[in-house]
């Protein structure tokens, strides 16, 4: 009897897990990393590439965007930094009215995703 109860519980729990899995929202990482893969031809094959901190601070979505950039561009390291030659400015990361942190950089490319690549003036 106990075995039967355990099996019935297992089946119910399994079906509940399946329902939750089927109903989950699709993850966006495939799209996000594809957006940053487009940067690769413009960057050296290794080394460090800066990433601009969002002007309104880090939130879950912007952290995820940063991690997606790192995931896509490995083996380059993508730290939050303004000290590198190249700088990734994610969509909505810079102040719309003009960001003083971008002084000294020139825009290299604006991608269809809205992300931009900057390079330090020689």
């Amino acid at each position, binding site marked *: 009897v106990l075995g039967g109860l355990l099996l*019935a519980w297992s089946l119910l729990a*399994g079906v509940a*897990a399946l329902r939750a899995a089927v109903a*989950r929202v699709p993850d966006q990482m495939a799209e996000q990393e594809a957006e940053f893969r487009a940067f690769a031809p413009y960057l050296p094959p290794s080394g460090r590439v800066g990433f601009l901190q969002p002007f309104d601070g880090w939130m879950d979505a912007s952290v995820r965007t940063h991690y997606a950039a*790192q995931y896509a561009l490995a083996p380059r390291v993508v730290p939050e930094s303004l000290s590198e030659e190249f700088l990734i400015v994610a969509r909505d990361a810079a102040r719309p009215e003009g960001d003083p942190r971008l002084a000294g950089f020139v825009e290299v490319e604006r991608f269809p995703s809205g992300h931009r690549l900057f390079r330090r003036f020689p």
Partner: protein
Amino acid sequence: VTAALFGLLAPVAAAWLSLAALRLRTARDSALVTGALSICIGVGLSSLATYWCVLMGVAIGRGFAAVDAIAWTAIGLVAWRALRPRGGATTAATAHAPGHLTWVDWLVRAAFVAVAVTAAATVVAHGMAAPHGEWDAWAIWNQKARFLSRDIEHWTAVLDVTWSNPSHPLLVSLSVARLWAYAGSETTLVPAVLGGVWAVGAAAVVMGALGIGRRRAWIAGAVLIAPATFTQLAAAQTADLAVGLFMVAALAELRSAVLATEEGEARAHLLVSALLCGLTAWTKNEGLVLLVIATPIAGWVAARHGRAGLVAWWLAGVLPVCMTVLWHKTVVAPVPPEYMAEAAGPAAAMARLLDPARHALVWSLIAPRVMTWGGPLAAGALPLTAAAAALAVFTRAGRSGRVVLAVVVLMFAAYYATWLAAPLDTPWLVATTFDRLIVQIWPSLVLVAFSAGDAPAALAVALASPVRPKG
């Protein structure tokens, strides 16, 4: 993908044949457990070989895959040739052939199949929704695999990616990079299939160790794979379920060493258990804790058999892997664990461990999670299974699970101590680690919980008295 499948199966088959050729598994052992052990050892040793190639500057590409395939095929052939004169006693099919099955047996097996199909569908559904896995997959494990796979000269740059947990060892990431080399691309199918392999392996160990001919093994298998957390982590492409598999395999072998009636049998089980403990430490830092806990138990097993020399077999299994772990942690990646990186020293950690307010905080955080772990409709599965395990070890047949339960309890105590001592935001730490840490010990807990019951007569005899050395 077919090539990647070959890359996965070649070392597993070589491990299976080698275990039999070296007489580390005999016809008396469960074929299901032997298969799971072969997965652990095959994947584990192939990742170690890949690591040493990486350290020697060998790119993990097509050329590497070709040489790797030849090497594992050769090892398998050598083991197979060594087996042939003995009649190839590689499986335990005859020893564990089921007797007459009643309609109840068939019903139980059918119910298990229904749960297994549901669990497989759940894993596939998660995989389709998140082909790159969960957060830790692309932030840590698969990202490390990309560094290893894409640029052999600069792969250590991943240590500068602070959120990639650089202190953790590389079994999972190396396995992914190795199979990508076989596949010729960074297909997400590779880490996805590996996640499924960890889950199937864990179920095989639990069911095989309990005796596949018995109903309780099928019920235990269903209970193991039903919780949503288990299937979610099977699809997550992370390392926690891998730890769960290696841990339960190591502990099942340690349990067999305790039950062994002959010194040779105990020696074989201790050696395999030691190797698996080492490979757990090569998977995640938690494996080092397992190693520290299991080693004195191995010493106790040796004392029980009255042969101190058995300890040497344990060390022989542990040391080769541990030397690699040590090298990685001291030379290649000398960074402290992320959860202790900002610790203010042992005194501060001890103060946090002894602070009653922190105990109250951690208990308040984990108590509701203990009750709800497992997901929808699985609430209570964890405390009920833990209670069943605690009761089981006081039964005659369930005594065999005492060593396993002791390790599980001490592992949980280590997790608890980390939650207490880590200088991080405790609610965040518990929220982001509890479910997956429990999955690490869940297969072992289920194994103990179902250890009670209809133990075979030989097992009961073995438990009744201490072992005497032969001669």
